[in-house]
């Protein structure tokens, strides 16, 4: 297939002639390896010439913002769509190249870890595939390009759990802080790439839809709620209620009918709306609710558990959502590790639990994802395969310990923040701050730093 280098060593030669998908699996030491070399010791990823990568690493990524994405999608013409396709065609490999370089500079012992190298291979495959896409000149070209994009998105569903497991396993060779930095950079970049890709796919779909009239500006009237993936009028109340319902049902299923699930009570400025990507918001709030409900349920259960109070507060530039529970607060011994991917005392348990998630994600490629309720506005995440939905639907006793750090990365990605205050022995207050991007005050320089190149 892709033979543009001089292979070293006989075994590698054979391996590399395999098609990409098989190659990936061959390197995962979890699967039986066809290579004559021992499957016990970590198999390093194959050597590739670094000149190709160097060229792409040398390019700067162009930052994106919700406002730009919205504005761009408002008046869609064929030429604009093709322009978008070419932007995506160049942006994605650039960003992946930077991440590959990051991974290559990890210590050898870290990169050869089975999980990390699996992810590395996935990335490299995607890179190779994307960088070879020729310039998009016609709608036909665009359609072919979109197929490539969809394939990439689907293949990368298992990245998050694999990475998390890898991080936990390489604690001996890489410090906790460095792991966190590495993981954060990777995840932020991943969010950017997926948003860019998904946005383009959504715009293409809109363009092809029977209600679209080329060039007519009014097709995107101000009442239209969606611009690609972005839901302009995320209503806090609706999303919170939906997440509350899902989280409660999940917990009820897991703990059985005898356990009383705490109610979730709302107050504050409930009519607030703001532009956001619904799947992200659902993930964050879902995680917070799961944590709170679980904490309350696992306390010495009473027949009437204290309710979880949610407050929505609207200001000119922010919307703040506060989730207050009386679940007993956070244990002192895990408090320092709350926001870290490199867990402390609970490492072993987390590792075990994580091992059960990739199976979930891997099978998603074949299984149909559970269809989201079409009546609920805002549930669009499942269109192109949502890794977040996978994680959100895991059973509650599967504690993998990445909910908070992940949620924080998502929150900060759109210039927001996530903060937690624990009243030890009593409960927790979580504060999710959402910036009302799309207003005039958004500064592009923040985007540049967020959009980790």
């Amino acid at each position, binding site marked *: 297939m892709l033979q543009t280098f001089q292979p070293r060593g006989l075994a590698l030669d054979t391996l590399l002639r395999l098609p990409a998908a098989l190659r990936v699996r061959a390197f995962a030491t979890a699967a039986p390896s066809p290579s004559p070399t021992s499957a016990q010791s970590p198999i390093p990823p194959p050597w590739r010439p670094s000149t190709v990568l160097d060229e792409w690493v040398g390019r700067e990524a162009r930052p994106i913002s919700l406002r730009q994405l919205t504005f761009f999608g408002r008046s869609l013409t064929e030429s604009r769509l093709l322009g978008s396709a070419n932007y995506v065609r160049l942006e994605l490999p650039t960003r992946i190249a930077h991440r590959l370089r990051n991974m290559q500079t990890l210590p050898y012992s870290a990169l050869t870890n089975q999980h990390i190298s699996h992810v590395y291979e996935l990335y490299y495959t995607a890179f190779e595939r994307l960088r070879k896409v020729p310039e998009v000149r016609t709608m036909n070209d665009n359609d072919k390009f979109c197929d490539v994009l969809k394939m990439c998105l689907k293949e990368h569903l298992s990245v998050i759990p694999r990475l998390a497991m890898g991080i936990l396993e390489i604690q001996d060779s890489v410090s906790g802080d460095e792991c966190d930095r590495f993981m954060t950079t990777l995840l932020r970049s991943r969010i950017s790439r997926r948003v860019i890709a998904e946005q383009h796919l959504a715009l293409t779909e809109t363009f092809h839809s029977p209600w679209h009239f080329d060039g007519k500006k009014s097709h995107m009237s101000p009442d239209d709620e969606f611009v690609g993936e972005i839901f302009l009028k995320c209503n806090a109340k609706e999303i919170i209620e939906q997440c509350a319902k899902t989280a409660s049902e999940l917990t009820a299923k897991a703990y059985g009918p005898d356990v009383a699930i705490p109610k979730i009570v709302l107050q*504050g*400025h409930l009519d607030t709306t703001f532009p956001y990507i619904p799947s992200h918001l659902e993930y964050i709030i879902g995680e917070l609710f799961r944590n709170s409900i679980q904490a309350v349920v696992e306390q010495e259960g009473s027949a009437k558990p204290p309710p979880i109070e949610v407050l929505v507060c609207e200001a000119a530039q*922010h919307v*703040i959502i*506060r989730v207050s529970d009386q679940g007993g607060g956070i244990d002192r011994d895990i408090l320092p590790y709350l926001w870290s991917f490199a867990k*402390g005392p609970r490492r072993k348990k987390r590792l075990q639990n994580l091992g059960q998630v990739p199976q979930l994600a891997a099978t998603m490629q074949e299984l149909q994802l559970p269809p989201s309720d079409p009546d609920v506005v805002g549930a669009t995440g499942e269109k192109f395969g949502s890794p977040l939905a996978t994680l959100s639907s895991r059973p509650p006793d599967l504690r993998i310990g990445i909910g908070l750090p992940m949620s924080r990365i998502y929150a900060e990605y759109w210039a927001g923040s996530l903060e937690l*205050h624990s009243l*030890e022995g*009593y409960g927790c207050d979580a504060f999710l701050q959402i910036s009302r991007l799309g207003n005039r005050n958004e500064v592009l320089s923040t985007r540049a730093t967020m959009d980790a190149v």
Partner: protein
Amino acid sequence: MLSLRAAARNNGSPVSLTRHIRPVTRPIHTKTVTDADIARLAAKPLHPLTLADLCKHGHPPLSEQALFNSANFTLAILPSRLAHRIQSLRALPYIVVANPNVSKIHDNYVHSLSTLLPIAERKIESLKDEVEFTAVMADLVQTHSNTISILARGFLEARKYISKVEVTRFLDEHLRARIGTRLIAEQHIALHFSSKPHQKLSDGHDDDKMDHDSYIGVIDTELKPANIIRNCEQTVGEICELKYGVRPTIDIVGSPETTIAHIPMHLEYILTELLKNSFRAVIEAGTEKEAIEITIAPAPASPEETKETKNKAGQMAHAEVGAISNYDQGSVDYASGSNKPDISASANIRPLREATPGVTVRIRDRGGGITPENYEKLWEYGFTTFNEDEINEKVSGSGGGGGGLDVMSGGPAGGSSLAGLGYGLPLGRAYAEYFGGGIAVQSLHGWGTDVYLSLRGVGKVD
């Protein structure tokens, strides 16, 4: 010059601890402090104090020998602490120290050191010596009671010559060290008054309330935060009624009957400051009818510190192994940049190893929150919303119309008014953090503010 000042100082002061000192029949001896003295004392590493040190002399009422031990111990560690303060003041830019207010504080420290040096030459082995020593301690406490307001004024006047960052750095260190120094002195004074020799001397005329069983010096082992909250609610409420005509109320939820071992003066200062903020906010937002909700949450008993947290603390704070730094105490104020590890390891008094569980107090008001611009400056010393003219007015002391909540006589923070000079929050946090607690402020701009005060019990004593 020094001894004249010393003589003039002991007027009947309102500070409760000194009122029982009979007028000294001879002036307090002083000895001139030379630069060599200061250098010698400051070169000594600061003894890493623990509260066990303060409580190790026994449960009151102390016997004569125990009292001497306490005096000698205090005498051994105070001079070097004072010397460190003097040195750190002298490290400030000349033009700042030349300011009359700052220079006064510098002189105060030198004076206090001068009163200690003659006594430090010998051990305390007689009751007469011990009484003299206690008088010196009282003089120390009295002299320095106004330090903060005077320093604040000084820095305000000299603000053109020193950056905010430097002021913050200096004050963070200085005020924390000051808390410790005063604590050592006040502890000895309190132990003196509750001791057996003193009871004999005063023939039972002394009906000071220092004979509570729960007190060890200034530490109340059965302090009920709910009581302090109600007291502060009264005090601050009265002033609000006077100035604004309305009085906000407080609702205490959670576990109001919780008690911890802590220092009442400190807690009172912190809560007064926090309530001042909340009360004023709700009044100005017009929501004073809605009660401010205060949740008292006792932390469960702490298990033995795990090896992992010790390692993590070691990694992060470079403290000695087993040292309790502010990081591993589940302090709410985890992200506070003021918890500089090297400071906490040396100048602060560390809580006992088997610390009794602490308590978290959450104050929730609907006062409209803090604007993002103000939020950035929350922890700055001297952050005010006043313009240049109002600052000048304050500095010249003619701001009589300040009144209201600006004029509050703070207890340990120092005598007269802090006159709204913006020291309340950072100082409150210094007190909270002193034993491993903290203050975190979360603003919901457009709705209200949540303040999380976490207090670590000062420790089990047998």
